[in-house]
């Protein structure tokens, strides 16, 4: 066994025997997201390297500690990309962290999520066993799809060691159109466009402006530009805009100490696309055809969660000084029973990232 992996196995074995919780750590760029990390830090950044990459297979396999930036630049050199645009909240994020957090960027509504592009992985469970699920092929239904369960599990079920991802060619052409429309008009138009065969791969509404990104074959993008109208953004401005949403570098997402002290919070509401405009105190930024609505303001947690629930969705407290109401919305009783069963199945000693997703899990 690889010596770096062997050390991690020993560490997990030791923690299991001592029943000493571990905080599984990659680049630490998402430590602010979710519930506070707890336990003895276990650094995975030594477990690096792209194990295999064959552009003609549209598959890349990388060890969990590989910097996301390294992976993305390797893919780019072959004209390919991670189509789900994982956020890079800061430099140093890792491939394992990307999968464990399960977060996706502006393209998510049309191309799918991290989970959708995960083909397989190798992990350690709480018994320090090295397990491989899924594989390096797109179609694979042998056994339960355990690898995709790990996407968005925040490390509570195991230590990710290596992951295989489906990658796609970078679209040959892109264009971003903007429209100065109010929220209702923007949402209504996005719905109409979503039901037509248009190469839309991202959209946002904020502060009275709708931005729509088109990507695909040259002919398709230029035909769609003609059909949709609006003002065409310069390529530089467009790249800047979408990465500011993807990486949360836009001022909307950054809550300085002062704002936090005032009790301001950043909320992510995940709702059905057809949800009518939501009214909460504060400012809003909408993505994913209306399925992801960011709110920034001082509304009480109960009010935000009630608004999301009324729409058939849920809310996550992404940034805020006081997360005592819980970062994530709890699942219902039946699902929580399954959550506890799965925790027991993968990590019977309860050593992995305790409380990172939900208290007592």
């Amino acid at each position, binding site marked *: 066994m690889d010596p770096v992996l062997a050390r991690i196995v020993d560490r997990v074995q030791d923690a299991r025997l001592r029943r000493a919780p571990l905080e599984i750590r990659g680049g630490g760029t998402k430590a602010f997201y979710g519930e506070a990390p707890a336990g003895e830090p276990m650094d995975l950044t030594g477990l690096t390297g792209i194990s295999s990459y*064959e*552009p*003609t*297979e549209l598959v890349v396999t990388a060890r969990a500690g590989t910097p996301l930036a390294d992976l993305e630049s390797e893919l780019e050199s072959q004209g*390919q990309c991670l189509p789900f645009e994982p956020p890079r909240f800061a430099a140093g994020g890792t491939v394992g962290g990307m999968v464990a957090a399960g977060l996706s960027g502006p393209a*998510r509504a049309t191309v*799918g*999520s991290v*989970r959708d592009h995960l083909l397989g992985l190798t992990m350690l*469970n709480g018994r320090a066993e090295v*397990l*491989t*699920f899924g594989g390096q*092929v*797109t*179609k694979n*239904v*042998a*056994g*339960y*799809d*355990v690898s*995709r*369960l790990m*996407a968005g599990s925040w490390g509570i079920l195991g230590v990710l060691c290596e992951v295989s991802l489906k990658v*796609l060619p970078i679209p*040959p052409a892109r264009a971003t159109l903007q429209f100065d429309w109010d929220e209702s008009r923007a949402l209504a138009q996005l*719905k109409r466009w979503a*039901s*037509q*065969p248009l190469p839309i791969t991202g959209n946002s509404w904020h502060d009275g402006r709708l931005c729509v990104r088109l990507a*695909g*074959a*040259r*002919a*398709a993008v*230029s*035909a769609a530009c003609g059909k949709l109208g609006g003002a065409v953004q310069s390529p530089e401005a467009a790249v800047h805009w979408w990465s500011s949403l993807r990486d949360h570098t836009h001022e909307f997402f950054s809550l300085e100490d002062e704002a936090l002290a005032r009790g301001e919070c950043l909320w992510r509401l*995940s*709702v*059905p*696309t*057809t949800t009518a405009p939501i009214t909460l105190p504060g400012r809003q930024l909408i993505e994913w055809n209306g399925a*992801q609505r960011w709110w920034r303001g001082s509304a009480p947690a109960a009010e935000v969660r009630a608004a999301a629930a009324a729409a*058939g*969705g*849920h809310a996550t407290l992404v940034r805020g000084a006081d997360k005592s109401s819980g970062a*994530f*919305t709890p*699942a219902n009783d*039946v*699902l929580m029973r*399954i*959550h506890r*069963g*799965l925790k*027991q*199945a*993968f990590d019977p000693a309860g050593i992995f990232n305790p409380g990172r*997703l939900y208290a007592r899990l």
Partner: protein
Amino acid sequence: MSFMITHPSRDERQAEVVAALRDALPPECILFRREDTAPYECDGLTAYRTSPLAVAMPATEAQVAATLSVCHRMEVPVIARGAGTGLSGGALPHALGVILSLAKFNRIVKIDAEACTAVVQSGVRNLAISDAAAAYGLYYAPDPSSQIACTIGGNVAENSGGVHCLKYGLTLHNVLRVRGFMADGTAVEFGSEALDAPGLDLMPLVVGSEGMLAVTTEVTVKLIPKPLLARCIMASFDDVESAGAAVASVIARGIVPAGLELMDKAMTACVEGFVHADYDLKAAAILLCESDGTPEEVHEEIMRMEEVLTAAGATRLEVSRDETQRLRFWSGRKNAFPASGGISPDYMCMDSTIPRKRLAEMLRAIQQMEIKYGLRCVNVFHAGDGNLHPLILFDADEPDEMHRCELFGADILETSVRLGGTVTGEHGVGVEKLNSMCVQFSPAERAQFLAVKHAFDPRELLNPGKVIPSLQRCAEYGKMHVHGGMLPFPELPRF
């Protein structure tokens, strides 16, 4: 192979279970006489048959809950069943179990053209969803070959694919929400009509779980806009290697075709006799390469595809002129299974996946196996995603052919694992590939699968004995290998 438990208590047990089910269901929803339950003795894998204690056919969710609750209390295995088109024996009855038929859950609850979703009951046929959505210019993308008959509940159980999943994804990628019931009858919903739900993402476990984690009664699927145009290129190749290499070249050029399928010469001859689609019978392999989208997009992509295929050594290219011709190109591929039924008394369809680059190597290995096992094999592949469907031809009435066919199949699966692939791409493990699961997964991995099962169904009542082989079974299978690939007691059913 027929399998029926006849020990004296079976009749008593049946009487007991049927009596209890009468508290949950109206009498006309319970079948238990042998002549009534006979149609449920097998699914699409007809070589395996078992008679169930009873068949329950609830019409409402309340009846599903009540049926499950009765079976849970009495510890009766429950096997959910849709149209029974599965090819791996996933819906094979348990001799002391109840078949839970969802045939009456055949209502399309809602087509929401604004949200681009459909809410359908689990017994709705795959194609019926697209038919209902057509009025809005939308359709449901996953298109397994059996789409005329198979149900969405079965698609969820198997994570079904189809010829267009290279571009549009599998069932998992096209399902937002699954509503159903746990083994004890508790109602449950996985996913939501938003793009994600709170907590762990349980959808990937449920989709593809072959009815072992929960029973599905209702599904919200994504609908996508119907492409304005689709055109298909039929390309001939002199040898299978260059056809395989052409597949890699298409992908390498950044093209993701809507469908990319390969048929070998034997298969082409077989389907040509069945559909008369003017296939090139001289070609060693035929590739079907499809582009869809806006007319501009398709025009541009078809040109690029033609360029790549020519450079890769295609000896003949034909681009579909219109929809009739395009459908004719596909007719052979879509009828590959029934056409094989026309040239051989029986056939067994395999379903492994390998990395695309190993395609030619795999085909050569299969040719060797034809000699080794003395049986013919015709091949269709979802070449774009490396999913193989070799059809092994045999005659069950000939002594030993079924047995050799099984060994041939197991050899294909084990070779696939060795080449970096998997034993099942889209048909599921069911009972058919239990032995091969011993090869693909370590004891610790199989134990982890079992632990996942327990998190959902601690009493192991939902479709027990499928998908995850027991430790004893794998030990026995390991021993069989020591004896030179010849199974001891080949006449015994092995599930």
